[in-house]
């Protein structure tokens, strides 16, 4: 099992706080958006770890902090045995070859003024990885074919391709340096389902063929269940539950995971109409001012509907930590209980 191996990427207590500046002439820092607020995760070689959560819970910030694109304000990120937090641009460069990121928006993440050939070739040129023009052409051709595009069309510009094709171009570029780890930040969220499916299949194939590991960030839990080996659920800057994929979907123990799974509509009319749905109230609180104790308590169905006042006291005052709920399964709730919701 993966658990006995060394993680290729190990994150501990990761923090990314954004200062909030006050008004007036002297912009003093008056607080902080605690976008990522003490996050632990491990990624093992060859696995897909899904990172899910609602908008604003800190998924993208986590991805950027792991790659040091936006330096963390605290904690540790160890990649292949090396601490990344605190490294400067130059020191990061050799590591960049091994860990790459693919962004959500295929429209914004490619330079519209460059033909596809240049977009894919750029990282190879920057890192001086090809000895001559002929080798460069050959490498780009292979990469473009790898992502299922026609290599005859590399002289075209991003605008001439559809959304799904553009996302493939972004993936080809990320693969140019033969990385070991890909951080995929909502790689299919902007695509229509019929096109999304092709990109998901591509990512699955590439993982097998090239022995990659993915940190797969998404808010769509159906996609995450499909592609992941393990899944981590985030709420307000923290991981609240991690488990092997089927374990998480079949035996979720955290009330938030349960509510999230229950809220997702299934594309199956009979099933969908016979389901019992947990509907939680309210919206996600501001990460500038997270609730005391358990961050989920303001919306927790268990807190509101099941617990006694004495039990609630603990939710209000003591922050729950990730505790073991079985093999490779942890969750952060004082009253965690496995429940079937699907």
């Amino acid at each position, binding site marked *: 099992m993966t658990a006995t191996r060394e993680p290729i990427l190990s994150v501990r207590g990761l923090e990314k706080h954004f200062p909030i500046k006050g008004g007036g002439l002297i912009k003093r820092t008056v607080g902080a958006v605690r976008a990522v607020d003490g996050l632990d995760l491990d990624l093992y070689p060859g696995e897909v770890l899904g990172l899910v959560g*609602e908008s604003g819970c800190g998924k993208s910030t986590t991805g950027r902090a792991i790659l040091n694109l936006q330096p963390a304000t605290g904690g540790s990120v160890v990649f292949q045995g090396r601490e990344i937090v605190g490294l400067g641009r130059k020191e990061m460069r050799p590591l960049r070859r091994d860990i790459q990121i693919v962004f959500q928006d295929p429209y914004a993440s490619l330079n*519209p*003024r*460059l*033909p596809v050939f240049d977009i894919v070739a750029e990282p190879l040129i920057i890192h001086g990885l090809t000895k001559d023009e002929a080798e460069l052409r050959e490498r780009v051709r292979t990469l473009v074919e790898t*992502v*299922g*595009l*026609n290599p*005859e*069309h590399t002289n075209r*510009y*991003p*605008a*001439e391709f*559809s*959304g*799904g*094709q553009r996302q*493939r171009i972004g993936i080809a570029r990320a693969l140019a340096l033969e990385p070991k780890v890909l951080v995929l930040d909502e790689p299919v969220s902007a695509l*229509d*389902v*019929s*096109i*999304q*499916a*092709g990109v*998901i*299949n*591509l990512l*699955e*194939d590439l993982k097998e063929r090239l022995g990659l590991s993915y940190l797969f960030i998404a*808010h769509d*839990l*159906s*996609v995450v*269940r*499909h*592609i992941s080996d393990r899944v981590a659920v985030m709420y307000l800057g923290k991981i609240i539950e991690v488990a092997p994929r*089927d374990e998480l979907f079949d035996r979720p123990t955290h009330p938030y995971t349960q*509510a*999230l*799974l*229950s*809220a*997702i*509509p*299934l*594309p*199956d*009319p*009979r099933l*969908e*109409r016979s389901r019992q*749905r947990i*509907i*939680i*109230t309210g*919206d*996600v609180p501001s990460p500038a001012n997270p609730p005391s104790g358990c961050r989920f308590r303001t919306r927790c169905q268990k807190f509101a509907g099941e617990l006694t006042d004495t039990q609630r006291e603990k939710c209000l005052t003591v922050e729950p930590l990730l505790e073991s709920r079985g093999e490779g399964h942890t969750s952060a709730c004082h009253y965690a209980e496995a429940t079937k919701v699907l």
Partner: protein
Amino acid sequence: MSTSSGALEQGRTQARPVDPDVPLLAVEDLNVRFPTEDGLVHAVRGVDYTLRSGEVLGIVGESGSGKSVTSLAVMGLLPGSARVSGSVRYRGQELLGQSDRAMSRVRGKGVSMIFQDPMTSLDPVYRVGFQIEETLRAHDPKLSSKAAQARAADLLAMVGIPNAAERVRSYPHEFSGGMRQRVVIAIAMANQPDVIIADEPTTALDVTVQAQILEVLQKALSETGAAMVLITHDLGVVAGIADRVLVMYAGRPVEIGAVEDIYYEPRMPYTLGLLGSLPRLDASTKQRLTPIKGSPPSVVNMPPGCPFAPRCPLHVAECDVVEPELLDVGGGHTAACIRVDEVGKAHGEASALFDETADDAVLASQPDPATTPEGATS
């Protein structure tokens, strides 16, 4: 005041004539064309549907398939440049070509609309309570301000806004996205319309908030008996609340039927392909997805024949002759495909027709004529 159960029951001032044989909303051969620099964009190419009292019709389809333009045409909300033809009848009364004044009498009271972005319907400078009261007064000028205020608070409470009596004094910016969409639903329901057209009402929301909003919408429908056209790309949302489903492709309906027929016995390859592309939350086995190769055609200068042909695994030469009409396959189920029988044999199992490919090279060899190479010119 009245002692009726829900806020929405109150204020139903006059009974409308109900003729069960006349559908609430009947759209026939609706066409919308936009003149653009690239040529005439034929965004909606012959949409027909009817909506009966109390019914929920789900409209699904990929981005750009014409879902929003169809609805804007029904509401008379398209820009002046749009060329609209066909017929849209509400309770037998033709809406196309009506004056703005006549249309504003229909909007809100007869047919009202909910958009994806709540700020399309809300004015940032007015308190939400006032905006609801304005809507009420627009259709009932005799309503006293006290009664209007009371109903505004009732409506906010109905859509699940806590402390509604106080929150009527809030401005839209003081609400979260989910709360704003609740306010929009309150406004849309204020005058008990017969028909609500909701265009992606939950797409911008988180899934836990989406569940809340869908519940509010369903409650509002059951309290008023209103019918709804629900536009969404989320096949899960439609599965949960639609009675009938209309699948759009390249500006036209390609399949219409009862929700179970569409999901379990689709007869148009595109519908089948869409279902096979969806990863399932409730699937524990790792089944490969079956994507549809390529992307939808441009609606500028469409070639003759079936618009799905370049992506269709069942394509034969005959498909390219004329665009297939909606064919009746029984039970109020129609599909625009000349090979409905072969599609039927798959019984909703997409892998029977579609490949489990990760390749997209086919698509790269078909440049989309609608897109211009911006990068090349600058």
